[in-house]
């Protein structure tokens, strides 16, 4: 048997778990959470994948790698994202989270494609928790992006009327109510 791949998967709030996938004599062998599963996988003409297990169970779904979080998956119970990373990446991500303290700068990003309708703050402005930063239009809705803790606007990365992709950086806020002088960020 030859090892094909090793992945680390994390559910929301769950501990990372390793999956080993190897090619076996008649199909694939996966080791995961202490269980060994033998199965066979076939690509369907419409792009879905059908998994067939030793006891006859069949599972069919569509999955594609997503740039930012691992795998996006569709099957009979609907769409779900699955966060998968290789072990190295996973350790880096963990480290980043631990460093992320209340003093860290906060990035506000667009959660969906849209258009900037109105910008309510400028670089250097002091902002309070709940204060409106900017308004984005997506479909027919106006979405207000508000600050969730006090701080100072470190930079505004968009302009009014600009078209946005999902995930685009909008505003960076440096936390703290004391308000160190604007413009001194590294």
């Amino acid at each position: 048997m030859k090892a094909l791949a090793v992945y680390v998967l994390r559910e929301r709030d769950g501990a990372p778990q390793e999956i080993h996938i190897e090619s076996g004599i008649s199909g694939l062998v996966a080791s995961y959470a202490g269980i060994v599963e033998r199965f066979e996988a076939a690509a369907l003409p419409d792009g879905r994948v059908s998994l067939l297990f030793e006891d006859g169970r069949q599972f069919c779904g569509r999955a594609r790698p997503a740039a930012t979080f691992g795998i996006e998956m569709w099957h009979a119970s609907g769409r779900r994202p699955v966060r998968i990373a290789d072990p190295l990446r996973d350790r880096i991500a963990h480290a980043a989270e631990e460093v992320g303290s209340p003093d860290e700068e906060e990035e506000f990003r667009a959660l969906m494609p849209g258009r900037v309708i109105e910008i309510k703050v400028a670089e250097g402005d002091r902002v309070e928790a709940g204060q409106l930063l900017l308004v984005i239009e997506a479909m027919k809705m106006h979405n207000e992006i508000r600050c969730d803790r006090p701080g100072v606007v470190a930079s505004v990365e968009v302009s009014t009327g600009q078209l946005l992709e999902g995930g685009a950086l909008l505003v960076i806020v440096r936390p703290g109510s004391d308000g160190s002088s604007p413009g001194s960020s590294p």
Partner: protein
Amino acid sequence: MRLLVANRGEIALRIFRACRDLGIETVAVFSDADRTAPHVAAADYAVRLGPAPAAESYLSVPALLAAAARTGATLVHPGYGFLAENAAFARACVGAGLTFVGPAPEAIEAMGSKIESRRRMRAAGVPIVPGMAAPAREASEIVAFGRTAGYPLLLKASAGGGGKGMRRVEDESEVAAAFARTTSEAKLYFGDGAVYAEKLIDRPRHIEVQILGDQRGNIISVGERECSVQRRHQKVIEECPSPAVSPELRSRLCDAAVAAARAVSYTSCGTVEFLLAPDGAFHFLEMNTRLQVEHPVTEQVWGVDLVTEMIRVAMGESLSVRAEDLTPRGHAIECRIYAEDPRRGFAPSPGTIVSLRLPAGPGVRNDVGIESGSVVTIDYDPMLGKLIVHGVDRPQALARLARALSEYEIAGVDTTLPLFRRLVADPEFVSGTIDVHWLDRRLQPGFLDPPPLSREEVLLAAVTLSDSPASRETGRPPAPASRWADAARRESLRGPS
């Protein structure tokens, strides 16, 4: 003969299908965002209206009249939304020598004003919610009404609709501020600051009756629909019949609805909406003077094609059905599928439909406005289509709904399908003991969280990655999770908009 549909998406396709069944040629109109949309490809004629924004395209009366003139269309169907309940558009069509497939402008106007429609209903003996007979000139009039009717009250913009321009008032101390805000919102959204107060019916059901009228004075009802599954006053699931309506109540509801339609000499397809109180009393809410989104559940159960009837009566024909010939069969349920992510506060989810698999088989009807490859833009209502199921009774309809939802796949944008998959298994929804606020109460954090990953899901994910080393290597490293969790948290701070 040629009919122009002043609309887009699934309803344009629905009306085109009725035209084909009647042997009428079809004219599509489109904005620059819709040149390659399914409704254009399905039409015999198609005319560009203007740029993507609706004000410059689907709401542009001059562009629509020019399109009709250019293609020789003699009939205009407004669909729903856009100009469907705009009396001025109906008048402009008639003025241009076109047949407007809808009621007379006078009926649209009478029912478009909450105050005027309540006045007419009161005169016609249709039960209405206790309320003020005229807009309040100042807050003190509302205070006076509240002392008579009792709290809570509901402040309403007279020109409002679709759940907009309403505010609940718990006691006298809230009246002044609520009146000021509702008045200014009514001016802003509807161009008319008139506001009045009604007694608030607590935990009502939304029951509506389908009406068909012709130009020879025939008006019939075609049963009721249950539309109580709502999110922030927007219908989410509709059924026919209502699990809460007995034959005796149905008969009284239908009589009241026919009386309401008769009070405005209604001559088309329309819907009379009622609030059904927990004590069994019902009250006129409003009349929608157009084809309703949820009309298919009535079609499936009552065996009537509402759209072909609507077109026929617009051309001066009599209704092809008589009330006494109609009998309901079975139970139908409709789900409105939106490009919204129910797990992120129903945030809009524009994008490209990378794959679309529609359910099929017995008891399944698809009315959709998209195809694989369609682009869902931010310009219009994000409804992608409707899934309608029909069974011999409500349990079979629910079983078929669950089955159809398990076959449904839309990849590329987030949709409300996960909500329906959750609701079809929800004991309260299945029991039918719901009211118009039920879903808002039910949608608590975690309600739509997926179950832990199954072994099958884990292996599908791993197989996909094994199989696509290229995509793995070119993928950017995942963003730190905390950023996205923060963003989702911020998302929940957004107010309703």
